[in-house]
């Protein structure tokens, strides 16, 4: 389809120890869409994200089968900076920030794709509006922030590049509930500008509410997939999630 941004076909990722993190996962993300990946702990959500974003080698993993296509280009097993250059930005699991850089520097430690000029002022305003605390601690070393503040910073970094596809793994991890709603709203706003968002999040309800499409993983495979509306209050979801 013309507006397909990301196509994942038969993705199989193997870790160094031989374990298959995911097996034969397929789905698509279209422009303007929010797609959610759901699944229990260890179901393979993070592995899927890694398989797409190229964040594999440092984890000792490889895509051994299947294709990941982004904006028409095959990015399977590509280096992260090449993937990023195409406009894909991933916020990895576990608050990945540069602990020994200040908050401000973290927001600038980005490659060519970083917003400039007026747009930058706009984006920064947006970030500090979403997360006012970050504005107060611009000079602080990121490693000294609280857990939630680090997560805010990680998301803030993603906004600094205006990505075509934004992937956020465990978006609300450690964030106070009062921040959830504005954050989901922000995600919707991003999608509405024609970008797309691939979302992994523990707060299933909110996620399903904002997402158009949903992929439910179980034990490394797609257990169910379809429009989010199908999932809300669905038995299948409960089964896939909790495991009978």
């Amino acid at each position, binding site marked *: 389809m013309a507006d397909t941004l990301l196509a994942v076909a038969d993705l199989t990722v193997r870790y160094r*120890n031989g374990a298959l993190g995911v097996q034969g996962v397929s789905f698509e993300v279209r422009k303007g869409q929010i797609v959610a990946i759901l699944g229990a702990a*260890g179901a393979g959500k993070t592995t899927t994200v890694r398989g797409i974003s190229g964040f594999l080698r440092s984890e000792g993993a490889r895509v051994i089968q299947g294709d990941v296509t982004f904006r028409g280009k095959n990015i399977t097993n590509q280096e992260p900076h090449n993937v990023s250059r195409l406009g894909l930005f991933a916020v990895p699991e576990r608050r990945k920030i540069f602990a020994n850089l200040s908050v401000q520097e973290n927001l600038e430690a980005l490659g060519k794709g970083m917003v400039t000029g007026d747009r930058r002022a706009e984006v920064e305003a947006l970030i500090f509006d979403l997360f006012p*605390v970050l504005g107060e601690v611009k000079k602080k070393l990121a490693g000294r*922030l609280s857990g939630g503040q680090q997560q805010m910073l990680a998301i803030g970094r993603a906004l600094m590049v205006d990505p075509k596809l934004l992937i956020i793994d*465990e978006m609300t991890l450690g*964030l106070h509930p*009062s921040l959830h709603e504005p954050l989901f709203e922000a995600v919707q706003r991003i999608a509405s500008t024609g970008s797309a968002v691939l979302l992994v999040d*523990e707060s299933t309800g909110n996620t399903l509410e904002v997402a158009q499409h949903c992929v439910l993983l179980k034990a490394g495979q797609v257990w169910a997939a379809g429009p989010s509306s199908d999932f809300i209050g669905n038995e299948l979801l409960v089964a896939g999630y909790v495991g009978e």
Partner: protein
Amino acid sequence: MSASEAPILEIADLTVTFGGVKAVTGVSSKIKPQELVAVVGPNGAGKSTLLNAISGLVRRQTVGDIRFAGQPLQELSPHRRAVAGIGRSFQNPPLVDRMSVVENVMAGAFGIRDYRVVDQLVRWRKVARSERARELQARTSLDFFGLGGIADTPTSEIAYAQRKLVDIARALMAEPKLLLLDEPTSGLGRSEHAAMADVLRRLMEPGTMTILMVEHHMDLVRDAATRVIGLQAGEVIADGATHDVLDSAEFQASLVGTKR
């Protein structure tokens, strides 16, 4: 006041300062045995810092008085506090990646001196016996968390949520009297919150444990906690029975995070 009414943890005017900025400001509170207290509050409110102060990780930056079972902690190093019966888990689980899961859990039992360094060199029988018992205990504990299947997996290879649980299982190995949990459910799905609540209840059952838990998920707090302390900008702004605090309108916005 009966003995059991005496607070197990007594915090008086606790202040933690990082380079001039106060992360915790004049916090005072008494926690009684067998309470399950939830600490809630916005990001950066000082919740983790409070736990760090109790377990002794930010000793130099701390002023104020903390007493555990009547004993002042301020002079005690973190490992002595652990020996005294304070166990904890972490917001970002610090496990030894190059050990198997079960060994990570067993590492939590260090404080139980069933044998000493010297025994290790000479009393092999005794050590072997203790080790077997310890391993069994760890496996049982992993089973309890539904992690029995990954007990022998290298820890570098497990998913994030599993790490969080392993961290808690490790904290339990020392059979602490006071258990500090930092966001036990972050990274767990909503349906797993209920399971966590169940775990917490079962931990409380024998009537020997007191839990102080930092948590953002109000469903779990509601479900499990007997009391809630609300922190904001380092100060206690609410302290009371769970429902009283969670339902009071004035704390809804700032603490609970529901509609503004």
